[in-house]
């Protein structure tokens, strides 16, 4: 098996201002299912094609944003190895015990130089309604809402992205797939731990620890269109789209949850292999890189974060 070490983004924990409004958005509109509400108020969600117990955790708080982006690794031995390598890289590693989230094993956590908390874990309970594995149907129940297939990736904003690039590529064995290089330095990096065009991305930003968006994968361009129809019907705040990204080639809509956290639903994009060269965008064509059809950024792309 070629894919080892870090397997994929496992879960993201988001802060929301109003839990009821957030659950309506992520469950009724995006199409996740509600796995559990716990005594501490956190709500656990999953997408229909995910085998693990949960992939999105919502926590009510007095400010929006992301608490942690967590990646699943292939074994406890890898987890120990990544902890050791993170420390050798110079980061302080902390440990979160098994069961801090229901069904989740022990986690290893670091705060990376962009100010984000990144966690790794190897064990999580199987979902009660996991996809079938024996003469399987497509799904048990037809997907609802936008029909999100999986939680796919995050784009995070913060300083020191050169060091973030070094951490993800040298310690966690990610590959850089695309980058935006401006005359005054690196603006953005897109990195993969898998066959996807990106599993995580960062854009340079003065304030640490910011969320630009959390993205969900959809079936195809028709599903992206249907998602747009639902957003209009339910008065969801759309940022931009449906459109396409030049970077990763995804067909996309950016929109906001009721607390102002940006979401993305997207389809398509290319398959990445680790022997492929890095794709580079410069200041002359960054507009087309981000929004391929508009060929220009909107003000919000670089300024609106939570």
């Amino acid at each position: 098996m070629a894919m080892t070490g870090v397997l994929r983004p496992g879960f993201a924990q988001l802060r929301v201002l109003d839990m009821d409004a957030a659950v309506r958005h992520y469950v009724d509109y995006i199409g996740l299912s509600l796995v559990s509400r716990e005594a501490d108020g956190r709500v656990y969600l999953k997408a229909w094609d995910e085998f693990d117990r949960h992939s999105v955790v919502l926590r009510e708080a007095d400010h929006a944003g992301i608490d942690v982006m967590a990646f699943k690794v292939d074994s406890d031995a890898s987890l120990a190895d990544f902890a050791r390598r993170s420390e050798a890289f110079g980061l302080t590693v902390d440990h979160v015990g098994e069961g801090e989230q229901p069904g989740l094993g022990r986690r290893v956590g670091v705060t990376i130089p962009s100010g984000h908390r990144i966690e790794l874990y190897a064990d999580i309970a199987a979902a009660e309604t996991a996809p079938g594995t024996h003469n399987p149907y497509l799904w048990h129940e037809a997907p609802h809402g936008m029909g999100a297939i999986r939680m796919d990736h995050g784009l995070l904003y913060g300083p020191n992205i050169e060091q973030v690039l070094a951490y993800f590529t040298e310690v966690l064995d990610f590959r850089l797939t695309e980058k935006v290089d401006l005359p005054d330095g690196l603006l953005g990096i897109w990195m993969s731990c898998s066959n996807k065009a990106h599993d995580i991305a960062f854009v340079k930003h003065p304030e640490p620890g910011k969320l630009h968006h959390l993205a969900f994968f959809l079936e195809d361009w028709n599903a992206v269109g249907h998602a747009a129809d639902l957003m209009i019907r339910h008065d969801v705040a759309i940022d931009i789209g449906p459109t396409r990204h030049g970077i990763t080639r995804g067909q996309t809509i950016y929109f906001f949850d009721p607390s102002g956290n940006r979401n993305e639903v997207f389809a398509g994009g290319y398959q990445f292999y680790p022997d492929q060269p890095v794709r580079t965008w410069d200041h002359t064509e960054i507009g087309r890189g981000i929004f391929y059809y508009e060929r220009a950024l909107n003000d919000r792309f670089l300024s609106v974060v939570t």
Partner: protein
Amino acid sequence: MGMGHLVRIEDGGDCLCAPGESVLAALGRAGLCVIAVGCRGGGCGVCRVRVLEGRYRTGRVSRAHLNADDEEAGFSLACRLYPESDLTIKAAGPPAPDVVTNKAAGKPAAGTKQSGRINPWQ
């Protein structure tokens, strides 16, 4: 009530804000792009305004962008601001974002929309 309330921008322009409509949505509907439009959910802080006159109520907003002292001083996030009388407001930052600029050359990067708010309600 019924008809809504008039929202006047200190630096010029006004619009009618319908009952239950946020000030930011009313400005957008009127094509008055004088306040930055971001998340429209009280989370990002770019639509910050100061209310100079009038009564209003507010929805939940991120404390990262508006604390109790700010509220006391009449600051508000326009996407979570609902008039209860006619209002006079002014934009209160944050400053217009420095969109990707070529700092070395001191000029905007090509392919970057540099000026003007886009109106998501258009």
